[in-house]
């Protein structure tokens, strides 16, 4: 069982590097794993896989719609295609291709999307998608996963290769603390309990998990005990874990690098409204686009910082 003391950063690595490592591992394990990209092999940190398996690498050029369709065809023929590009181009740009050729057609395609959210940084709002979890979550049958660090991303890639069905895997660009133990089991659809607490539940996904850990440490100093849960799989949601925690604490905070509409916060609100109505605070972008800047200063400006999580926890507890 993990706890706040055990969750220490062992250094910084990007989740996209975790993708690259996981892709190589998945490629080693399954000879039908194929990687596709739309002119972003470097950004996807996939050189180890490409060098090891050049015949299973498909360069599509800047043609994302075609890449999704080619992936659907490869899956039809029994391959496990991993279609890779930036999250904006992997979802919004090709929503109908994913909807018809992948989701509705029940294709075993893995959409692996880097540079999600504000932490993409300097490229700015055109590339900083904050709506992708919502879009992908609405597609029937789609599994949606947003891992939180290098180790979890690597484990997630191996897991999705073994899972039959369409998956949206969302990760990011910046170097980020690595804190999930390397041998931590990754189970699609099963929440990861990071710290047992009694006063407030914090559900976090992606990069903000690290901030949630830091917030929980601060709250502990003030005598507030945080039940901290990492929701890496937003769909299917681990409803049992969400409901049990909310019933225990009676106060909920959700943290995500995504619009407050449609993402993790929405998913948990939908669950709790039905099974255990609970006061909830949303740490998410406030229905806005992003802008250029450095990753961490953007998170702070858009209300996704450690202090924002602490404040949200206090509001959820009626202390603000």
């Amino acid at each position, binding site marked *: 069982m993990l706890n706040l003391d055990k969750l220490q950063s062992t250094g910084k690595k990007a989740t996209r590097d975790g993708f690259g490592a996981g892709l190589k591992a998945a490629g080693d394990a399954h000879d039908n794993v*194929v990687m596709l990209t739309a002119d972003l092999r470097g950004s996807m940190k996939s050189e180890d896989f490409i060098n090891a398996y050049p*015949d*299973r690498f*498909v360069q*599509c*050029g800047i*043609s994302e*719609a*075609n*890449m*999704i*369709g*080619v*992936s*659907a*065809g*490869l*899956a*039809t*023929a*029994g*391959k496990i*295609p991993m279609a890779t590009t930036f999250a904006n181009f992997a979802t919004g740009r090709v929503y*109908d*291709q994913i*909807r*018809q*050729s992948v989701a*509705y*057609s*029940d*294709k075993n395609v893995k959409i692996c999307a880097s540079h999600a959210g504000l932490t993409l940084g300097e490229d700015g709002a055109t590339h900083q998608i904050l709506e992708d979890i919502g879009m992908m979550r609405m597609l029937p049958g789609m599994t949606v996963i947003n891992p939180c660090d290098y180790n979890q991303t690597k484990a997630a890639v191996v897991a999705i290769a073994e899972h039959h069905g369409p998956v949206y895997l969302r990760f990011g660009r910046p170097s980020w603390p690595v804190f999930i133990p390397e041998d931590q089991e990754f189970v699609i659809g099963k929440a990861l309990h990071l710290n047992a607490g009694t006063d407030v539940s914090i559900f976090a996904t992606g990069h903000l998990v690290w901030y949630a850990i830091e917030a929980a440490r601060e709250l502990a100093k003030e005598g507030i005990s945080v039940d901290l849960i990492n929701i890496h799989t937003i769909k299917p949601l681990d409803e049992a874990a969400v409901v049990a925690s909310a019933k225990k604490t009676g106060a909920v905070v959700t943290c995500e690098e995504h619009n407050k509409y449609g993402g993790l916060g929405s998913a948990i609100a939908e669950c709790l409204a039905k099974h255990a109505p609970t006061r909830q605070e949303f740490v998410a972008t406030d229905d806005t686009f992003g802008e250029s800047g450095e990753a961490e200063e953007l998170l702070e400006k858009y209300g996704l910082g450690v202090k924002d999580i602490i404040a949200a926890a206090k509001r959820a507890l009626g202390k603000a």
Partner: protein
Amino acid sequence: MADIQELKRIASQVRRDIIRQVYLCQSGHPGGALGNTDLLVALYFAVMKHDPKFNMDAKGEDVFFLSNGHISPVWYSVLAHAGYFPVEELKTFRALNSRLQGHPTTHEGLPGIRIASGSLGQGVSAACGVALAKKMDGDDRTVFVLTGDGEQQEGQIWEAALFAPHHKLDNLVLIIDDNGQQIDGPTREVLRMGDFGEKYAAFGWDVMRMDGNDLEQTIKTLQEAQAKRNGVPTCIVMKTEMGQGVDFMVGTHHWHGKAPNQDQAQKALTQLEETLGDFPAEGI
């Protein structure tokens, strides 16, 4: 392979099935379905190696993708007569709880369908994917994909048109139904496409041309494309007449997406010989 007279008998029955399917549900797209009947009969009864027991991955088989999914009644009829599912099931076309959706889908488990189509422009990419997988697996069978001519206005088509020659998919045959019609009118008036052959040649494809309503020529051209392995994909620009086989439906976009009434359906059926037996249905 059935002889040409037998193939023509199958085509006549398929055209009857199209009229009767569309009449029964009073919706659907008879024009393009009638125009492409000879092509699909040629593919499934003379050209392709395929297994009606249906294996999704199609290993060791030729594959057909229908990208312009709205002409589904012709595909359903051909698949049924080829043994993929019972011919009687054609009466459920577009009805509630049917496997024969308005546009083809894998979602209801209908044998013979490998991907959903309907939202246009996506089938060529999927066909590229299967052709690529066959290359990776050393499977030398051929992948055929049909698109409409209006469908060629979709941008994704041209992404795939770049992809296939770059990846040397000489096991891919794209057939463009160049009937010159789309829903809003003649293609040259809606959005002029120019000469498809010139365009595809410029993109690095081998180009062939055929009259898709001439069964013998269609079979010969398809077989030639199927046998070709020269590092280059093939585009067949296929002239057809929308509504072919029914005199008052020929050559006009008016029957692109419109069902005949009872009198019109009866009149159409008098022009199409019942050769293999009609599927049972009330009122027609």
